[in-house]
């Protein structure tokens, strides 16, 4: 009990002490101003990732996990998206206060991103070689020829067979899995310190998913990158993630290392997510789901945003927004009853 304290307290960095974190998101707030009203998409997200570490960000669509990533990359569509508060620190420096040019230099070299749908994320009218090589040409000043050779090497590194020939092919000539490898090769070209992978396997077949996840894990270990893995699929993260942050309605509702989270989830939403994974030992039983729908971001429920769907909801839940409570050195939960959940058998 005594180890419970409110995580929303002023952080070390704000008091002037460098945290030493590689990438840190603090109290980030983003809203979308649409013609239907203001949608509060991100309402105070905190997370960080260090070198050589994999953070999985888990959540349903609309939970704000991708928007957070886009905001970090600086590719949020403005309008409608606007950052209304918070900090994104890279090596302790707030990127939101940087000039456009400074931010551009971080992209690719400091933080790079792998997108979900490689087919639309790659430019259809240029060869994959051109698209990888242009980074070497523009950022490293390489000659056209050298850059092309380096591009082929990158394709080789992500285990694309016949890299030397395929470098001259167009995105639509690759299969889904191979295309995602191209995407990964492109994002790794400039040796980024942090890689954000936004649902990198969602569009792929299950067997290919595993290959891509293995590849990502391998490259991450080799290069000692910080990896932020955004996904809605609990199955994907178990093997690769060190820590997991669960998002709901634009907030982190639970954060824990992967063992703790699977063993003893400390938020009813996480419990619901874990229970909705089909299990072989429960064959024949009805699959459990979380009732209701994710909330409309135009009208987030009062108090704890999860309360309308929560099986444990009590009168306090619609009244008061639970803060993200630190429950241990590596875990935190934003539930009024987090301690009871942790202490249950």
């Amino acid at each position, binding site marked *: 009990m005594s180890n419970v304290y409110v995580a929303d307290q002023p952080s070390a960095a704000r008091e002037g002490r460098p945290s030493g974190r590689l990438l840190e998101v603090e109290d980030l707030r983003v809203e979308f101003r649409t013609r239907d009203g203001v949608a509060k998409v991100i309402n105070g997200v905190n997370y960080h990732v260090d070198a050589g570490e994999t953070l999985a960000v888990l959540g349903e669509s609309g939970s704000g996990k991708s928007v957070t990533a886009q905001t970090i*990359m600086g590719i949020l569509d403005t309008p409608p998206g606007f950052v209304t508060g918070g900090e994104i620190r890279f090596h302790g420096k707030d990127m939101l206060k940087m000039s456009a040019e400074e931010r551009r230099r*971080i992209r*690719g070299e400091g933080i790079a991103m792998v997108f979900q749908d490689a087919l*639309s994320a790659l430019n259809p009218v240029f060869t994959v070689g051109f698209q990888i090589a242009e980074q070497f040409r*523009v950022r490293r000043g390489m000659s056209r020829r050298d850059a092309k050779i380096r591009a082929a090497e990158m394709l080789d590194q992500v285990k694309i067979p016949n890299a030397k020939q395929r470098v001259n092919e*167009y995105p639509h000539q690759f299969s889904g899995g191979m295309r995602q490898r191209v995407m990964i090769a492109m994002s790794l070209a*400039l040796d980024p310190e942090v890689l954000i992978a936004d649902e990198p396997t969602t569009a792929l077949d299950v067997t290919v998913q595993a290959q891509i996840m293995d590849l990502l894990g391998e490259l991450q270990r080799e290069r000692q990158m910080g990896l932020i893995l955004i996904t809605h699929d609990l199955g994907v993260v178990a093997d690769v993630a060190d820590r997991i942050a669960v998002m709901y309605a634009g907030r982190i509702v639970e954060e824990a290392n992967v063992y703790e989270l699977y063993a003893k989830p400390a938020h009813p939403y996480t419990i619901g997510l874990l229970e909705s994974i089909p299990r072989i030992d429960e064959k024949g039983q009805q699959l459990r789901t979380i009732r209701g729908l994710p909330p409309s971001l135009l009208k987030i429920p009062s108090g704890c945003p999860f309360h309308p769907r929560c099986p444990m909801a009590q009168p306090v839940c619609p009244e008061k927004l639970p803060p993200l409570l630190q429950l241990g050195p590596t875990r935190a939960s934003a539930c009024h009853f987090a301690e009871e959940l942790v202490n249950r058998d």
Partner: protein
Amino acid sequence: MGRYVLRRLLQLIPVFFGTTLLIYALVWAVPGDPFAGKCGERACPPDYIQFMTEKYHLDDPWPLQYLYYMGHLLTGDFGQTFGGRDIGEIIAQAYPNTLKLALVGLAIEAVIGLTAGILTGLRRNGFLDNLVLVSTLFLLAIPTFVSGFLLQFILGTQFKIINPTVSSEVPFHELIVPGFVLASISMAYVARLTRTSIAENSRSDYVRTAVAKGLPQRRVVGVHLFRNSLIPVLTFLGTDLGSLMGGAIITEGIFNINGIGREAYRAITTKESATVVGIVVVLVLVYLLMNLLVDLLYAALDPRIRYE
């Protein structure tokens, strides 16, 4: 790529014959005496009737007539007018003027339309965007003959900045206003097409990827955005050259340019059927070839087409 070209070429052949057959049938083969009213007010002289009947095989059923006509055409023989002038010669004389006019129009359309489209596509909802939107709406709404008339009256008659009519040598500088009139509707269309295309593509995933790669804004726009956005615009401009020539009839009439459209109009009003068919054949041929060229250009610019 080779198969693609071949397929397009094969598709083109029936269309060429279909279009020319249709026009031929309209002009020659409508039920009734083919010479009724075809020689002006008087009845046609018998030797002319005999000559034309032989020349165009008017005693045969008209599909056969058409085949004979096409046979002559393939040897370069367009036939003769009532007055005995060689139709091929008439076309050869008038055609360069129309081509000049269409090229001037195309250049104006491309320069103004593209500039306006690119500027507004990159900066949407600004003052310039609204100005261009409103002016393109107006351009789209003013029929060619009205804009031609008004510009001729204002610039030519009132302010005397230009000659109200183009002189017979058809110098390029005198074609600027007629070219603008001819291309005004297409110009508005190009501006809007470019704007929409750039606006749509600037929100596309691959442009976002290019930004995420840390490329400078110049390069994101100049390489990734433009290459993709301008493909539909270029193909429109290509097909439009053919349409401009086919549509030059009004502009040529207003500015008194001795082009193929005016020859066609004269031929229609004087019932010179063979001339009408000849001119339409040339226009259709040019139009179809331009379309083929544009298809090939499209395939060259967008690799996705090539490998279908």
